[in-house]
């Protein structure tokens, strides 16, 4: 029974792994193919089924005039917009979450939990509902088709995630830690950044990861709110999909687009396992 269970477990995990890894393998394999290898039927193993080439990768740096797809600028635009949006969202979201966790706000029938819900309610609405107001507002402020406009929109979209995660996290940090810091001579700001913040790093990392993922993978708003001046990576990649799709470059670009998230996940995973509050309140 035990052996059967183990076999079954491994089988399920293996099938799931194939399901997850197969698209990556497909993209990696395709990124090293050329026109012939892609169009002459299915091929899988390099040097056996097809001769690998770096043509798809080289095209990423070439301008369209020279036969390339040039995703360098959209790539760095994406990094800039996502990082700036995420950083500001985490900064503001963490402060807002700390206030919501530690202080009691009352305005009519509105309480702390209502304010927290108000933040997250913006993520409950379908993005298309927000698109037109964003479009009009950015237009009014001359921020359409600009990086700054996208950053502002991303802050609005990402901050609720940061607030939601961090409120929950701060609620689990004992208030007595803040109080002890105050008694030990910290003013409220020092108590926050010298004691509460260092103990909240796992929560900030989780919130940061979510912000980065949501920001990096956004297509809808970057598509709606940009035209010719600014282009982000998801839009640039989708734009490659045309009647003469260069599948090899498209695959390479797709891999480039997931690489930062994988790198961040590997780095962050170490910090996630490090921090905990077990010594604060046994």
């Amino acid at each position, binding site marked *: 029974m035990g052996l059967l269970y183990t076999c079954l477990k491994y089988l399920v995990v293996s099938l799931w792994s194939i399901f997850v890894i197969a698209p990556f393998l497909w993209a990696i394999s395709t990124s090293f193919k050329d026109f012939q290898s892609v169009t002459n039927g299915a091929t899988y193993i390099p040097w056996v089924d097809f001769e690998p080439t770096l043509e798809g990768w080289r095209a990423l740096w070439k301008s369209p005039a020279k036969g390339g797809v040039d995703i360098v600028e959209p790539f760095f635009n994406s990094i800039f917009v996502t990082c700036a949006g995420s950083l500001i969202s985490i900064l503001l979201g963490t402060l807002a979450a700390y206030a919501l966790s530690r202080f009691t706000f009352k305005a009519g029938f509105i309480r702390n939990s209502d304010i927290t819900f108000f933040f997250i309610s913006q993520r409950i609405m379908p993005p298309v509902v927000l698109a037109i107001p964003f479009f009009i507002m950015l237009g009014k402020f001359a921020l359409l088709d600009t990086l700054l406009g996208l950053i502002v929109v991303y802050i609005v979209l990402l901050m609720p995630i940061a607030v939601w995660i961090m409120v929950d996290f701060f609620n689990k940090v*004992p208030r*007595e*830690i803040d*109080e*002890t*810091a*105050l*008694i*030990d*001579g*910290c*003013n409220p700001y*020092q108590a926050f950044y010298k*004691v509460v913040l*260092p*103990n909240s790093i796992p929560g900030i990392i989780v919130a940061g990861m979510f912000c980065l993922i949501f920001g990096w993978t956004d297509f809808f708003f970057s598509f709606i709110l940009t035209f010719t001046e600014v282009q982000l990576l998801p839009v640039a990649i989708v734009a490659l999909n045309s009647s003469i799709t260069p599948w090899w470059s498209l695959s390479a670009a797709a891999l480039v687009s997931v690489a930062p998230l994988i790198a961040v996940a590997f780095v962050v995973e170490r910090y996630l396992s490090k*921090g*905990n*509050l*077990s*010594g*604060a*309140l*046994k």
Partner: protein
Amino acid sequence: MSLIASNLCLKADTEYHLNDVCFEMSKGEIYTIIGRTLAGKTTLLKTIAGLIAPDSGTLNLDGSDFGRIPVWKREVAMVYQQFINYPHLSVYENVAFPLKQRGILKTEIHNRVMKSLLQVGLEGFEERKIQALSGGQQQRVALARSLVKEANIVLLDEPLVNLDYKLREQLREEFRNIFTAKASEDAILIYSSTDPVEAMQLGGQILVMDEGRILQQGNAKAVYENPSSAKVSQITNDPAMNLFEGTVAEGKIILSPQIQFDLPRHCQELPPEKYNFGLRAAAITLDEGGFPFTIELSEISGSETFLHLKHEHVKVVGLLDSVQNFNMGETVMARFDTTHLYAFATDGTLKSSPYSGMK
């Protein structure tokens, strides 16, 4: 140096957390605030620390308005019942934290941290992470951090309550020595506890609290011998003092038709009327010449046995200084040592005490 609280009040909705609290505390003394859970002990300590602002009333330290000083500028240290430390810092950094906040020189910080760690028995643990310590060690770190500040007022909010029995017993003795030394350094030490035994062991002054109000204040012996009310007698005794209704008539105390005994000497002048009589568990023993009681529960605690006894409406707990087994429902004869009998009026105020006679 003296800390004077005048008419401190704090109300949340309809409930008083502090109700007209007044006291005067002097340097070099240990004060134990004893009360049941939700009596207002922690609220009072946090008010003294400056973490809670009272609705009304004042706190004065040496004549200056202590209540106006922000918490981070008060010369106060506090240890919580939970083991509160900074998990991102080592033991050394935890203890040094309040000194670094004051901008004290590194060499002095080092000397004072090492002295505090030595006091609490944690020398050699400087580089350990808090998470790597046991509960008792974590509480020692918190205590070291409170001692290192050399604050004028040290607040200890049930610091032993979350430790296991053995460790609590061990630390209680150690802490008592540390506190006594600390108090002699011209500090005011305020210790809160629900445990009467702990309060009596620490000695010093006792403040009995209930529902946000201070019921009685005095030295430990005086409070033990002459609890001002039936409530105080229950709070300051473990197990709580037995209270039973009775009537004084014709030189006797009548609890029930079967349980009647002569008025003890210190109660002779009680006018004939209804009273609540109090007797500690230790004053109720098994004796063939006693009154018949049914055993409701028998509890062995260490080398003693607590017997929960019932006779009609009279319910008492007796204490035997040996381990004995009894059957539930068994009838035993219990003797009341009336020389230790307290008499409280029906409103709870003390009328007669075995130690000071009539009130």
